[in-house]
């Protein structure tokens, strides 16, 4: 990396790289590949605790709650290095639920959840999406009935990744059944071992598992509700600006392997890398990765100035994920017939990695807000164009 980091940041990068190099195991990589992220597995939990022990899960948090009082730039650096290493940190506890609790949770809740999150001891899974509420979160209708000291939950969630390995569900549920949809949602922490929860696998075309989660008379103590009742939608919308990002180096690593392949593979007595068309395409990908990098670190820059990345977060997510798909397509062009060979085939280049990314990258422009939603946000917030 040659971004002109501060000295201490450059040193941190080295430290993180060294750490990863020392602690990474082939089992961890394999487990992460199977799960789609470094999450919930035995190997991952081990590794995450080591990361947490250094404060690297939550460097920007206050020391009181287990952070380092450091910067978002440091967080972004660590997450990008992890992505580069094939260990993407999409860590709901540290990056979605935690920051919301930090901002809007009660002191009791902070004390209960933040330090173990920072130590990497507990893992959360996102509980937003439902069959009828994808991009349109306000439409969610899992019911949380107020029963005095607890809520009674009934309903269904869908595409709730990691619920089968996480400890807690970071749940958005409907607590008000009349009035405007977006004024009746609350956020709560649900122990995934609670009686009445059934988790059913949904297998994706990447081979990863995601889940349907059924709630059948599940009891959730009121103290587990985050912030004020019925204000969950506002917390969520506010949080999106903070949490929306895509670490570009997940695909940078893949790109570098494609470049190596092009250099090493000789056809008709000439390395593929000398083919003018391939040169152009690979150079273009290098440029787009560079652009992604600048968009990515801009977010940390804005956050560290205590401003809110607004349309910029949408732009980064949209751009970087579309670059990701272009890298896969370019790689497929470079590899030709070989591109379709899967992991395990003795002839598979990149050990089948590209075949896998080609499949899995399909969802990048869909999950966490489609590219279409991001473009709406860019136009409306970035340019002030009127809502449809």
């Amino acid at each position, binding site marked *: 990396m040659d971004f002109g980091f501060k000295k201490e940041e450059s040193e941190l990068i080295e430290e993180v790289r060294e750490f990863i190099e020392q602690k990474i195991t082939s089992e961890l990589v394999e487990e992460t590949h199977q799960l789609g992220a470094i999450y919930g597995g035995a190997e991952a939990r081990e590794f995450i605790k080591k990361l947490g022990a250094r404060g690297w899960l939550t460097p920007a948090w206050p020391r009181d709650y287990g952070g380092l009082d450091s910067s978002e730039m440091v967080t972004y650096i660590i997450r990008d290095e992890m992505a580069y290493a094939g260990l993407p940190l999409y860590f709901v506890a540290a990056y979605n639920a935690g920051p919301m609790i930090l901002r809007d949770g009660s002191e009791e809740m902070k004390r209960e959840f933040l330090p173990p999150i920072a130590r990497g001891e507990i893992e959360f899974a996102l509980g937003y999406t439902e069959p009828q509420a994808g991009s349109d979160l306000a*439409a969610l209708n899992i019911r949380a009935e107020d029963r005095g000291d607890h809520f009674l939950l009934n309903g269904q969630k869908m595409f709730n990744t990691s619920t089968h390995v996480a400890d807690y569900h970071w749940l958005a549920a409907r607590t008000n059944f009349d009035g405007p949809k977006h004024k009746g949602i609350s956020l709560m922490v649900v122990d995934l071992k609670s009686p009445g929860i059934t988790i059913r696998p949904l297998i994706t075309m990447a081979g990863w598992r995601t889940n349907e989660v059924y709630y059948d008379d599940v009891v959730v103590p009121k103290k587990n509700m985050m912030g004020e009742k019925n204000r969950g939608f506002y917390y969520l919308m506010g949080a999106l600006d903070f949490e929306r990002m895509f670490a570009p180096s997940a695909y940078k690593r893949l790109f570098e392997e494609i470049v190596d392949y092009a250099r090493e593979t000789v056809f008709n007595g000439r390395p593929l890398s000398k083919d003018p068309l391939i040169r152009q395409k690979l150079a273009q990908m290098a440029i787009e990765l560079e652009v992604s990098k600048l968009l990515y670190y801009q977010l940390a820059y804005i956050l560290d100035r205590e401003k809110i990345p607004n349309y910029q977060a949408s732009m980064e997510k949209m751009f970087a994920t579309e670059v990701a798909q272009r890298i896969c397509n370019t790689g497929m062009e470079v590899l030709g*017939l070989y591109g379709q060979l*899967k*992991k395990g085939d003795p002839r598979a280049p990149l050990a089948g990695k590209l075949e896998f990314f*080609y499949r899995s990258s399909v969802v990048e422009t869909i999950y966490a807000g489609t590219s279409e939603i991001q473009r*709406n946000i860019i136009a409306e917030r970035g340019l002030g164009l009127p809502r449809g």
Partner: protein
Amino acid sequence: MQKEVWAFQGDNRMDYDLNEEQQILRDSARSFLAKQCPGTFVREMAEDEKGYTSELWRKMVELGWMGILFPEQYGGYEGSFLDLAVLLYEMGYVCLPGPYFSTVVHGGITLLEAGSEIQKGEILPKVASGEEILTLAWTESGGSYAPQEISLKADLHHDHYVLTGTKLFVPDAHVAGKIICVARTQEPAGDYEEGVSLFIVERENPGLTVHVHSTLAGDKQCEVEFNQVQVPGENLLGELHMGWPVLQKVLQKASVAKCAQMIGGGQRAIDLTVPYLKEREQFGRPVGSFQAVKHHCANILTLLDTSKFMTFQAAWRISEGLSFEKEASMCKAWVSDSYRQLVALAHQVMGGIGFMEEHDLQLYFKQAKTSELAFGDARFHRELVAQQLGL
């Protein structure tokens, strides 16, 4: 649903409709395959070692599909190339697994192009009756359809040839009875197109080993190793050293045949997507009413319609006995890119549900990539078009 548009032959002019017989063929194939080949079957066959069932194969034989292209004397139906295209469209529509394409297109067309009367008389009737499965072994370690690729050697020893080398990405070689093998019978002296010959090789031949690749689509492409494989002299297919011109024709025809499959798949991707977009609501209105989604869909339909026209123009020219080299390469280049883009847009408008293994859309994602790569991708065919343009 939108009206299906075709681009077909009429009174000496390329026409945009099916004739009556073709409509009957299409309708019967559509209802037969809908029953016989649901998505669950496609997934099952991707895991299956053989990749097809004898039962379905037999039924397809009974429908006369194996001999659709062959002259009557070989037990065929003397259908036109366009008839074949209609059938392949329907097979693409359901992602039909199994060795139909390799048998009838790879094998059948190559035999029709280059086979002697004796060879055709011996093999084609068996194909038509479902007894024989064929394939064509072309690409080697370079993964290319260019003449430079051919280095598997065939040496003449008295009355037979000895073949040594390795072929990759050979479809269905693991179940084929006969493999047509592209071999080099003369060291290239400047022009790689010279000195290439074709041989009919029994798969049971000792010295021949087949290993099925593990591929994206779970189709059966094979690595075939020829280790001192002895082939009788009469198994030479076509003239000695003159195999390349045959292969060029096979490449173009097979490309168009592949495109017919692809546009069937493209139509299915639309049929899987558009009805869902009309039903599914977000923000209180159907997803399909959002302009961004609509425009993706408009692009999808454009990619499909244009792919259909390009495919059927090329197929029509082949049927009519007109020159088809340029149109076939234009077609494969256009459809290869378009089908991939079409499915990518379909995934984008479907959202998360389309990313699930159990949703059939992913089958077409895989079919699109596999088909794009078969017989040369868009770049490969654009280069052929450039040559046709005199560049």
